[in-house]
């Protein structure tokens, strides 16, 4: 167990935003909340998952909804903590620790917000190693662990507990309906996990990895080095395309932000066109009409100059971007994993395509 230092918060925001693969919402607002909480004296401890007792009870938290909504209805630590207190009251048990469902985007901070309010330690792990839009897209779902109960808290004193669900997909459908009804944003506490489950099926040490990635990008930026190259080196990624955004189509439906973006190539990619489809996160990329990369590999769009990640909600006409791919955690690339998070799970009629040799 170690304390998360104040000067690790900003790198965490930078790193988590890259790992969001376009989704998860910008961590900036959640980071601002943490900065305020730290200024008021709060401190958060980060726990090595190896130190979890097998029978420890771990809260798995997330802010659920469409990233676009998160830019107007802002992240709130009191609401984040409320979903956890609801779960404790429902179970009649206290949690040992808290962890994020996804390290990508704003949810990297959700357990820290809860921890700052409740005093619980944060487990250095998540269940995606990136961001994904739906409940069944977690390593816990791939491992067929139970998916209930789930609590959802809304700012207007609406509290919902989904006591049981027939499957992970049913849990997603029911909680998505609730989330959409309260404005496409809700604080949630997912099915509680035991320490043994986290150790066996969680994606471990991702909070530390996100902080280290953010530190490296920020270092490169400060030293006026190529921040995109620094990201690729630090996260073992590959550069796919460089260009300028020429069109973005977006629609917020069913609690998601869906759409496509078109990027026209510059320099080495002049004359070529890259298209990328998203459902909160970037899911499939086409170069001149041919699929070149798909989920679960992380498809990330970075500002070509600063290396700052660009989310599907902040992508806009005229931006100069570098499209990169980062390798997905191994569990997501298994046949079972691909059923949950492969391109077909997002409605794309294509097999998993990776740019990392040996992965397919």
């Amino acid at each position: 167990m170690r304390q998360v230092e104040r000067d690790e918060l900003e790198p965490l925001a930078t790193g988590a935003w890259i790992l969001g693969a376009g989704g998860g919402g910008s961590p900036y607002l959640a980071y601002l909340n943490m900065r305020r909480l730290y200024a008021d004296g709060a401190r958060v401890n980060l726990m090595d998952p190896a130190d979890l007792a097998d029978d420890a009870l771990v809260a798995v938290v997330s802010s659920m909804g469409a990233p676009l909504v998160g830019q107007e209805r802002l992240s709130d630590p009191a609401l984040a903590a409320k979903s956890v207190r609801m779960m404790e009251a429902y179970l009649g048990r206290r949690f040992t620790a808290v962890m994020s469902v996804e390290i990508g985007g704003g949810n990297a901070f959700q357990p820290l917000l809860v921890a700052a309010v409740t005093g619980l330690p944060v487990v250095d792990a998540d269940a995606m190693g990136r961001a994904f839009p739906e409940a069944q897209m977690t390593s816990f779902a791939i491992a067929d662990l139970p998916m209930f109960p789930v609590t959802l808290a809304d700012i207007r004193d609406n509290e919902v507990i989904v006591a049981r669900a027939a499957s992970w997909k049913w849990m997603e459908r029911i909680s998505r309906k609730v989330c959409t009804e309260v404005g496409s944003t809700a604080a949630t506490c997912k099915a509680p996990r035991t320490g043994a489950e986290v150790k066996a099926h969680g994606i471990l040490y991702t909070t530390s990895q996100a902080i280290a990635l953010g530190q490296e990008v920020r270092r490169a930026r400060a030293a006026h080095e190529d921040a995109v190259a620094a990201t690729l080196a630090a996260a073992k990624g590959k550069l796919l395309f460089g260009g300028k955004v020429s069109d973005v189509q977006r629609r917020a439906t069913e609690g998601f932000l869906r759409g496509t973006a078109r990027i026209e190539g510059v320099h080495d990619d002049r004359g070529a066109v890259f298209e990328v489809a998203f459902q909160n996160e970037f899911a499939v990329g086409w170069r001149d009409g041919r699929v070149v990369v798909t989920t679960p590999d992380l498809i990330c769009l970075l500002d070509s100059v600063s290396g700052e990640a660009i989310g599907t909600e902040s992508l806009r006409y005229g931006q100069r971007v570098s499209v990169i791919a980062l390798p997905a955690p191994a569990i997501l690339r298994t046949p079972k994993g691909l059923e949950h998070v492969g391109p077909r799970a997002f409605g794309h009629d294509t097999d998993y395509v990776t740019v990392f040799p040996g992965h397919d």
Partner: protein
Amino acid sequence: MARIGVDVGGTNTDAVLVDGARVLGAVKTATTADVLGGVRAALAQLLAQTACDPAGISAVVIGTTHFTNAVIERRELQPVGALRIGLPASASLPPFVDWPDDLAAMVRGQTHMVAGGHEYDGRPIVPLDLGAIRDAARRMADAGLAAVAVTSVFSPLTAECEKEAERILAEEMPGASITLSHDLGRIGLLERENVALLNACLQRLARKTVSAFADALSGSAIDAPLYLTQNDGTIMRAQAASRFPVWCFASGPTNSMRGAAFLSGLDDGVVVDVGGTTTDIGYLKGGFPREANAAVEIGGVRTLFRMPDLLSIAMGGGTEVSADGSRIGPQSVGFRLLEKSLAFGGDTLTATDIACAAGRVDLGDRARVAGLPSDVVTRSLARMGEMITEGVDRMKSEAGAVKLLAVGGGSFLIPDQVEGCSEVIRVEHYAVANAVGAAIAQASGEVDQIFSNQTRDQAIGAARTEAERRATAAGAAAGSLKLVEVEDIPLSYLPGDARRVRVRVVGDIA
């Protein structure tokens, strides 16, 4: 028809007369504390120098860094009442939350958060708390606040709450300036609120400054409309600038880059603008500045403005140089160059003195710098060359050599050869590129409205046609129109595949 371009900077007020592709005259005067005197003097000198018929002048276009500088230097800002509508949402991040402490302390008059606002699908979050707005208005009136910024959750989609608040504020605070966030920004509550707050704190200064510009013009023999330049290099009526001073932010660098393109006849290259205290480096692409991608900070405040992608380094004509020539800046004597620098009889070694000693420029009394050791001169010139080379390299986004366009009053500090650049181009009127950029500023047309019962392509096409019509009506040449912004947000709460479409086109003055 000829146009006058004026650049009102922190130190100098420059004016040029441009007719088509020709610069007919250029003058440089000192900026005065009241702004008025400097502009008046510049206009009078320009008319005298060119002996032009005032009746032949079609427009006077002023570019000014006055409002940006006021925020950066924390002066002449007025306290603002912040009214946020959206509770119980977003409560943990109140207005001013990500502002630098010193600026917040100066601008934060009162902050009020009240219940209301909308969801993304157009439903109210909770009913708008009219009573709380009225209470807030009375408390702000009691405290003597004269500027308010109103920001409601999802107001770019539905401005109802902000308009209702404006009505109540006008009743309770007659005469107060009210800025509504949906007039200025898009989705992104905190950034939109920040821009509204910045706009509100500049209201008094904007009214004073714009009316000084108008007075300077009406006191001259010129009878032509007055425009100010916006951050995207287009013009707006002086009246609009007085209500929305934030739209003038960053118009200075845009003007200097567009001026450099005009003076050199080149559309692409790296523009290095050396002023008195800083050097701005930016990229010119197709005659326009390359824009910054990410959130842009103004005086430390995060916004979503579209701004030129600029690198500012602390090196200019007034920058202080250490005795051995190894260290350049960051301190500068600024506008006191004429009293502080060695060449002008002062006791501070500045970059200008070095350039004088090296024979790059003839300013002040060269005898006063003749005694500088040659190794000091060589070392400091080399260091300045390195700083420019590093800056150009950082801003470069493509391999290969580019052309460097040297502008600004201190551009003599730029060496004739810069690594990574094929040539260094020096143009006539380099010191007034900024005013030239103002004179050739473009006209724009914008459409921001809801379309329904048509496809996305049809809606964007219709918006574009209307925006082009408006740009042409504002004086743009039809053949030069260029699409600079297109954005659509589907409004799923309205029937008929409704979407809000924002399109902006710009074109050269016909």
